[in-house]
């Protein structure tokens, strides 16, 4: 097909031809075309099917407000549905397809919905699918699902990359039309740091669409010159293809830059960048959007906004039709007729709803005054229009203008409400604007070119002066003010056929009236009941006419009827851009332990713990499953010696002369009395008396303690301690620093742990049981002088130490320890064996300290001191928290030693029904104990401390299983602690 509708002129580069396909049909265009302008040039007026009725639809606008021309771009994994053809830049090889039809675009089998449309009015879903109730799941929902939605996702992973960035400026100018360019020039000349952002690829806004002159030259040329001047300024950043989509708090704006959407391939560069712009001031120069007039069958391909028709002719050298009529209620519509006629396009008639003389002379066109279009003919493309007086005018394009709406959206993102301007018959910015924002040009109701240029300069100058810059004295660019009289006219009452308001959601004038009749009169309800103003265009062309009709129905004025709330984004933002680089492995940060490399080299499997990757076990040759490795590691540790990287536990240095006093307040037990060189177990409570965290704290010196926290709470405990230090007890002389990443720490556990360490710790440090007893600690040196910290603490229940070295030596320390331990048959162990041993020993972790249990419950009630002030001790003594008959932490053995216990099972007293009323508690942790040779569990059970030896039922309804278990001490290995002290 040739470019039958291409006419002279325009801002396209005719020296190059671009090939593209639409539904497989080969077509041609030029650089500077959008997909929409190229489709029109090729005579393709039918481009899609409507959402609900599958009505044939064409291109309605020439900008981001497009409701109809939604197409699918590209193929394979790059396929992107619901793209507006009016903003898609043409490139060589572009592959576009239409959406929402079964069968071909021309013969859509779903078009039958249009013929049954009387049954598909507003609220159709709510009314129809109510009965019979059973039909919903089996019939209605599947049918609706299969016919809902427009385009199709590729269902493949998005191969493109997306980025995020931050920008700062004194003044953000939003929109590079006449007002925006004038504002940016003024601000740039003052020396302020300016960002000028525009959604289009060619800055200039309406200057590119009009034949108006600025400073004695063509508007588009002046825009090019202005951009050249701005680009040469070091303090100005010009961003094209960049939509300011949201105005957020304190001068922060969201900007989506489309970097490679106009190229055949992104070539490994980010496809889009989501910018967060921090501005001190902003000038909104977003222009205005034309609105249609509703009349019968006004949605046919070929019925377009008048400003868009003019845009296609002037900017793209395309006429959307060979025989055009204009239907307008304002002077601006006349310019479309004049510009088209000047380009040799046949303009048959200008139908003006006003009883007023001609605005200008249009050769060959009839002026029909005080008239309107009531109906149109032509299912897949306009053939003729019928006027109120019955006369039929054959046309293939009707340019409609109902006046222009200032783009107030961003002024309302902080819940500001626009005010009504009777003169413009439109809402203008009003009320409280976002902090630092001022509005210029058409967005502020300055609808003519001269006024827009002047307002851009004046508003920008006021903004930069406010920031302390000296405003440039240069006058605003000069242009004439074109005629712009407008007489409100929303819909043609004489029309009997359906008249469309929101073409994207298939909402008609009748639907709005029905909504009113059925009582949905508030605009918020109207929107939700009819779906008016939803989806990709957010009703940019539809909302105001619909409000006007609702106002008519209710007898109120339009401002009394009000608008719905404008929320970001102004135009759609892809989820890929919002996600940025945070996907896959980089979805969140991850941390590696100091011995990660050694672990990798020695057969470790890893598990994510918080952000950490920890070794869960080390597989050795011949081991068939994880249990083989874990059993071996746990057994080997208890029989000889094992090594585990425990760096992930939080470490906090607490220093100052009041360090002990401070710890007394954050821990439930006392630390000021701890001797230097000793370690103590500490339990922290929340202020409400529930257990929060636990760990050991070592006193390294008179004014120096080293605290450990659980891995999961490391950050939270530190935050709480800073709160306590700064906000609760600011008088205490104490300072905190997190050293979690500073020290690599290893547990060396088992009867041979001391023998192993003797080979590593420098000789002058005596680590015998006498010199370095259980719960001792000290600064030592290892491997010939390297500073280290040694703690004799044990999570496994064995004779054990934890040794800490500066983190950068962690990996080699792991190697040294394992090398030194060879003669003792040392084996590294992971988190699973760690878990097995702590369950055997009855040590509580997050399963037991789950945010619901008290010190009393875990058998540490006596640790909560009432003799000193500490967080949580007052509320921990509430009656219900210290009941004698409450749950207690106990150990559990299966009566049949072959049974495998199930975590989460509930305990039921023998002989009672397994119902919640008889619930006695639950199993918190289970493991196979290789040292006892059977499954063991920890759990909470009522009065557990008085019930040792009792057999109860452990019931898991989820597994449909119950097991008889014996209640035993939680310390299932070495209850007297003899091994610890060996």
């Amino acid at each position: 097909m040739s470019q039958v509708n291409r006419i002279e002129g325009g801002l396209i580069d005719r020296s190059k031809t671009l090939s593209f396909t639409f539904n497989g049909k080969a077509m041609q265009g030029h650089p500077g075309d959008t997909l929409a302008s190229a489709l029109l040039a090729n005579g393709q007026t039918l481009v899609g099917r409507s959402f609900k009725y599958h009505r044939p639809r064409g291109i309605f606008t020439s900008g981001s407000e497009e409701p109809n021309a939604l197409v699918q771009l590209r193929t394979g994994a790059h396929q992107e549905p619901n793209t507006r053809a009016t903003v898609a830049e043409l490139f060589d090889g572009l592959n576009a397809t239409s959406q929402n039809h079964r069968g071909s675009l021309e013969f859509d089998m779903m078009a039958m919905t249009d013929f049954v449309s009387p049954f598909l009015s507003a609220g159709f879903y709510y009314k129809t699918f109510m009965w019979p109730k059973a039909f919903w799941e089996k019939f209605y929902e599947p049918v609706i699902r299969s016919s809902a939605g427009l385009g199709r996702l590729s269902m493949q992973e998005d191969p493109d990359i997306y980025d995020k960035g931050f920008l700062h400026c004194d003044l953000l100018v939003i929109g590079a039309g006449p007002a925006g360019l004038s504002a940016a020039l003024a601000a740039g000349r003052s020396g302020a740091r300016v960002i000028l952002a525009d959604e289009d690829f060619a800055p200039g806004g309406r200057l590119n669409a009009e034949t108006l002159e600025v400073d004695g030259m063509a508007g588009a040329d002046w825009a090019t010159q202005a951009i050249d001047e701005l680009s040469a300024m070091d303090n100005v950043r010009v961003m094209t293809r960049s939509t300011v989509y949201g105005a957020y708090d304190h001068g922060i704006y969201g900007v989506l830059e489309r970097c490679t959407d106009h190229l055949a391939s992104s070539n490994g560069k980010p496809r889009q960048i989501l910018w967060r712009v921090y501005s001190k001031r902003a000038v909104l120069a977003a222009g205005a959007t034309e609105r249609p007039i509703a009349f019968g069958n006004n949605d046919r391909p070929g019925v377009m906004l008048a400003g868009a028709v003019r845009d296609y002719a002037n900017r793209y050298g395309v006429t959307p039709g060979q025989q055009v009529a204009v239907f307008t209620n304002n002077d601006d519509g006349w310019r479309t007729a004049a510009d088209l006629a000047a380009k040799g396009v046949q303009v048959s008639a200008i139908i003006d709803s006003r009883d007023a003389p001609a605005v200008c002379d249009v050769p060959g066109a009839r002026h029909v005054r005080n008239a309107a279009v009531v109906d149109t003919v032509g299912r897949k493309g306009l053939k003729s229009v019928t006027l109120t007086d019955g006369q039929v005018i054959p046309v293939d394009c009707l340019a409609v203008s109902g006046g222009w709406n200032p783009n107030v959206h961003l002024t309302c993102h902080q819940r500001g409400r626009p005010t009504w301007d009777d003169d413009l018959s439109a809402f203008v910015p009003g009320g409280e604007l976002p902090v630092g924002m001022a509005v210029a040009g058409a967005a502020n109701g300055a609808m003519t070119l001269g006024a827009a240029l002047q307002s851009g300069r004046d508003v920008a100058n006021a903004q930069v002066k406010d920031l302390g810059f000296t405003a440039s004295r240069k006058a605003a660019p000069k242009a004439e003010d074109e005629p712009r009289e407008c007489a409100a006219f929303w819909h043609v009452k004489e029309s009997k056929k359906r008249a469309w308001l929101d073409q994207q959601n298939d909402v008609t004038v009748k639907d709005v009236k029905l909504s009113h009749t059925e009582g949905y009169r508030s605009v918020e309800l109207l929107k939700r009941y009819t779906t008016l103003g939803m989806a990709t265009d957010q009703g940019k062309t539809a909302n105001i006419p619909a409000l006007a009709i609702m106002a008519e129905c209710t007898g109120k004025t339009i401002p009394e009827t009000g608008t719905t709330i404008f929320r970001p984004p102004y135009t759609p933002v892809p989820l890929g851009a919002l996600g940025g680089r945070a996907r896959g492995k980089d979805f969140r940060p991850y941390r590696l332990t100091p011995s990660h490399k050694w672990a990798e080299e020695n057969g470790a499997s890893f598990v994510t713990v918080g952000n950490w990757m920890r070794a869960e076990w080390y597989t050795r040759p011949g081991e068939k499953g994880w249990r083989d490795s874990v059993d071996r590691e746990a057994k080997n540790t208890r029989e000889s010696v094992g090594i585990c990287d425990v760096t992930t536990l939080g470490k906090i240095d607490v220093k100052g002369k009041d360090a002990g006093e401070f710890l007394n307040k954050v821990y439930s037990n006392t630390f000021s009395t701890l001797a230097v060189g000793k370690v103590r177990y500490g339990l922290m409570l929340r202020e409400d008396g529930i257990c929060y965290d636990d760990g050991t704290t070592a006193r390294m010196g008179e004014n120096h303690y080293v605290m450990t926290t659980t891995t999961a709470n490391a950050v939270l405990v530190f935050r709480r301690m800073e709160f306590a230090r700064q906000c609760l007890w600011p008088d205490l002389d104490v300072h905190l620093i997190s050293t979690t990443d500073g020290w690599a720490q290893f547990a060396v556990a088992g009867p041979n742990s001391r023998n192993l360490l003797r080979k590593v710790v420098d000789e002058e440090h005596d680590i015998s049981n006498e010199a370095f007893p259980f719960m001792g600690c000290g600064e030592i040196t290892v491997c010939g002088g390297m500073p280290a910290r040694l703690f004799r603490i044990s999570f496994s229940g064995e004779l054990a130490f934890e040794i800490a070295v500066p983190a950068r030596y962690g990996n080699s320390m792991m190697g040294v320890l394992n090398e030194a331990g060879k003669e003792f048959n040392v084996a590294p162990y992971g988190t699973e064996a760690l878990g097995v041993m702590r369950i055997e020993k009855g040590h509580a972790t997050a399963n037991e300290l789950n945010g619901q249990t008290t010190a009393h419950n875990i058998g540490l009630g006596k640790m909560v001191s009432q003799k000193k002030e500490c967080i949580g001790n007052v509320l921990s003594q509430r009656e219900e928290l210290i009941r004698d008959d409450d749950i207690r932490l106990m150990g559990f053995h299966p009566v049949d030693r072959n049974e495998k216990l199930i975590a989460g099972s509930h305990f039921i007293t023998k002989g009672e029904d397994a119902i919640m009323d008889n619930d006695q508690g639950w199993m918190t942790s289970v493991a196979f104990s290789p040292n006892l040779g059977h499954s063991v569990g920890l759990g909470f059970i009522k009065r557990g401390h008085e019930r040792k030896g009792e057999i109860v039922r452990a019931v898991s309804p989820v597994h449909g299983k119950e097991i008889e278990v014996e209640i035993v001490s939680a310390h299932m290995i070495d209850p007297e602690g003899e091994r610890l002290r060996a």
Partner: protein
Amino acid sequence: MIINHPLLGPRDAAEFIYLGDACLIDRPDWQAEDAAEQFYEYGYLRDNPAGEHQELWYHEQGDRSWLVVTRDTLSHKITKVELARDVAVARGRG
């Protein structure tokens, strides 16, 4: 939002952790006769004003200062930012 840190200047709110009402500074006396009642109110009862609100923010991705930020909950306008430590001292804590 941007919080004007008294020591570091304007910082993005994303660098901070929000805790809540600055009344959390006024921890009751544990030895008071009605300590249990006071701690119950301290722990569970908060005002929820539509308008000016004093609240605690923690500069976790920064200098670890706790701040008392006076913010309008309707407009997000911030009228005052103080070091929580100074507020605590001024309120008689230490």
